[in-house]
Structure formats: C-alpha cells, structure tokens
C-alpha cells in the first residue's frame, strides 16, 4: 500500500482545486439538476400565478381568498412542504418542483396583482376610449405596465427557489443541496463550500439575468428617464 497522497483532498481543506478538477462531473450534474428544478418551478409558478392575478384583478372579491391561500402556503416550512406532498408525488423530483411552485406563487401573485392595480385608471379609460377590448387592453396596456412590479416578484421568487431547492436533498433531489447533505455526513469541507458557493453564484447570476431581461423588455422606463 502506498502512502496516502498529501493533497488538499487528503487534508480536507475548505478550498481545494483538486476537488474541482476530479469531481467536475458530479458538480456539473448537480448544477444541472439545480437549474432544472429552479427553472421548471419558476416557469410553472408563473403560468399559474399570472391567470390567478388577472382573475383577482378582474373580480375584486377573488383577490382576498387568492392572496390568503397563497400566503398560507408560504407559511408552511419547506421541509414540511416537501413532506406533505410526499403521499402525492412519492420520492421524486416532481415533489421538489411542486413544493417550489407553491412557494413562488405567493411572491408572484402578490407582485403581479400589485402591478396590475397600479395601472392608472386614466390610462385604462384612454385605451377603452380608443376602442380597446378587454383582452387587448390586458395584453397591450395593463400587462406591460405591470411588468416592473411583476419582474421584481419574479426575481425574488427565482432567488428564493434557488436557495430553497437545496432542502430537496431530504428526498434526494436537491441539486447542489445533495452535495451539501452528503458533504455534511462525510465531513467533506471542500464539497460543502464549493456547492454552497455555487448556489449563491447561480442565485446572483439568475437575478442579474432577469434584471437584464427586464431592462430589454421595458424600454419605455428608460426613455422617460433619458
């Protein structure tokens, strides 16, 4: 038997280049899973939240119940949420996605609704006066004007989803959370630190990406200032 190698992996150091090079595939797989979980859940969340917010805007009485239900969902702890959905989805990635979708709903519905409500009545009346029907009014006037508030909610929801996805490690589908969980049990410092840092990097990158998209699709907010 040869002497154990004296590298940073053997010394169990926090920062370890060898870890990055030898476990690149594990890391890339985890990042891939993490991105998949997050993107899927935010997109599904958006697809559910948008109609809910529009309906709540159209029929005032619906706003109270919709907001109440989504807020209650947000109060349920993530670990509990994933466990409560366990009987429905079993141990699967769908379980984690479903949990994250339910969380993103609160933030998304609240912000989209706030954006829609902030559209000035004068603007709506002007559009109606120009012969806009309800659908055209919604698509070409109200939704674009609600974009900044909606995007703010989307950014918070995305960043939270990236960070919450790690808890999915409890059912084995936590992306980078899996590495953190495994690293904790084996006292593997480099793995825990690397995975944690990658989580934050993904969250910040996603936030900047959404900020960039918002900048691109709301040219009128820049024109006013410039």
């Amino acid at each position, binding site marked *: 038997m040869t002497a154990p190698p004296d590298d940073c992996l053997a010394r169990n150091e926090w920062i370890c280049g060898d870890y990055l090079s030898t476990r690149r595939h594990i890391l890339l797989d985890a990042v891939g899973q993490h991105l998949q979980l997050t993107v899927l859940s935010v997109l599904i969340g958006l697809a559910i939240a948008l109609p809910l917010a529009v309906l709540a805007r159209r029929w005032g009485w619906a706003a109270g119940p919709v907001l109440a239900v989504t807020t209650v969902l947000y*109060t349920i702890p993530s*670990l509990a949420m994933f466990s409560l959905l366990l009987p429905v989805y079993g141990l699967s990635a769908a379980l984690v996605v479903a949990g994250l979708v339910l969380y993103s709903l609160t933030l998304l519905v609240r912000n989209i609704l706030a954006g829609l409500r902030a559209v000035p009545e004068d603007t709506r009346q002007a559009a109606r006066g120009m012969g806009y029907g309800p659908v055209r009014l919604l698509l070409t006037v109200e939704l674009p004007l609600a974009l900044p508030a909606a995007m703010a909610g989307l950014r918070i929801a995305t960043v939270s989803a990236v960070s919450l996805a790690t*808890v999915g490690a409890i059912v084995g589908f936590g992306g980078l959370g899996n590495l*953190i969980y495994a690293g904790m049990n084996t006292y593997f410092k480099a793995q825990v630190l690397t995975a*944690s840092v990658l989580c934050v990097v993904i969250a910040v990158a996603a936030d900047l990406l959404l900020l960039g998209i918002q900048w691109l699709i709301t040219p009128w907010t820049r024109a006013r200032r410039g």
Partner: protein
Amino acid sequence: MNTLTDAWNWLTDPAHWAGDDGVWHRLGQHLVLTVVCLVISCLIALPVALVLGHLGRGGALAVNISNVGRAVPTFAVLVLLLLTPVGDWGEGPTVVALVLFAVPPLLTNAYVGMREVDRDVVRAARGMGMTGRQLLWRVEAPLAMPMIMGGVRIAAVQLVATATIAALAGGGGLGRIITAGFNLASTPQVVAGAVLVAVFALLVEAVFEAAERLLPRRGTR
C-alpha cells in the same frame, strides 16, 4: 387519503407525544430555538435599522443585505458552520444560521418604516427643538412601529418554518420528527410532523395578528 388517516393515527397516539423524541419535547425545543433566534436577531437588526433610518443613510445597504440574504441557502450556512469550530457548540450553528436568516427582513422593514415617517412631522418636531435622540425615540420610532412589527412578524414566522432545517443537520426541534420519519421510511410520521410544523407556524402568525389588533395603535389614527 390513507396516508392522512395513518398520519392522524400517528398524531393521536399518546406514545408519540411523550419522551425525548416526543412531540412535546420537540415542540419545546422548537419554541426555545425560535424565540432565542428572534430575540438575538432583533437585538442586532433593530438598533442598526433605527439609527440608519434616523440618519437617512445606508438604505442601499439595508436593501442589498436583504437581497443577498435571500440568495444564501440557510441549509448551506448551517452545514458550513457545522464543519467549522462553531459546530462544537451544540446548537450554535443553528442559532447563527437562523439569525443570519432573520436579520435581513427585520433590517429592511425597520429601515423602510423609519424612512416612511412623514417628513413634515419630523421637521415640525425639529422645529419644536427636539434633539436627535428625542426625535428618534418619541417621533420616528413610534410612527414606524407598525412597519417594524410587520418585520418582526415576518421574521418570527419564517424562523419557525426554517428552524425545521436544523433537523437535517442533527439539531433538535419539530423537524426531527420529519427527518426521523424519512429515515424510518414512515410516511405517516413524516406527514404528521409536517402538519405539526405547519400548524405551529400558522399559530405564530395568528398570535402576531391578534397582538397587532389588541395592542393600542400608537401613532396611527
């Protein structure tokens, strides 16, 4: 629906409520953990927010800390601390991770609350010859109280919810019932634990709601 019946049976079995692994013991741990973390977070965040809000500086700082805070997974912080010397202090890593998690909403809400105090009122108070300290304690802080309490409420509920994660790293609290259920492959226990935590979180929300209604509303008409 079978799982729900099984979970109900789990919950109504007195054997599951007694002892060191029992519900009462875990509930007590959860409550202590939440209260300790909330008090520490308030002691750190509120003075800073009140002073920054009074001076009208550091708004960008408060908002940025809040945004960065959301990006850092509590679970990752907990495990990182667990592997450092802090890990030897028993519940130390959990408390530090949860405090880091609770400070941002407290800071932002209190800061925004201080800044939203009517500037005319502040000018009037200054005109009456109030010192900075008097202004802070007698005018700004009372007027900002609803926003500050809103932040405390958000932090409290989120702490109850997030304290369950401590169980993933071997800490105590109600999360332990859930993780133990996972290890035993007992879905009824997992669901029962989840229901307990959810009910606890909603109870805390309700307590704050009631407190806000009952307490005299100083500073608001």
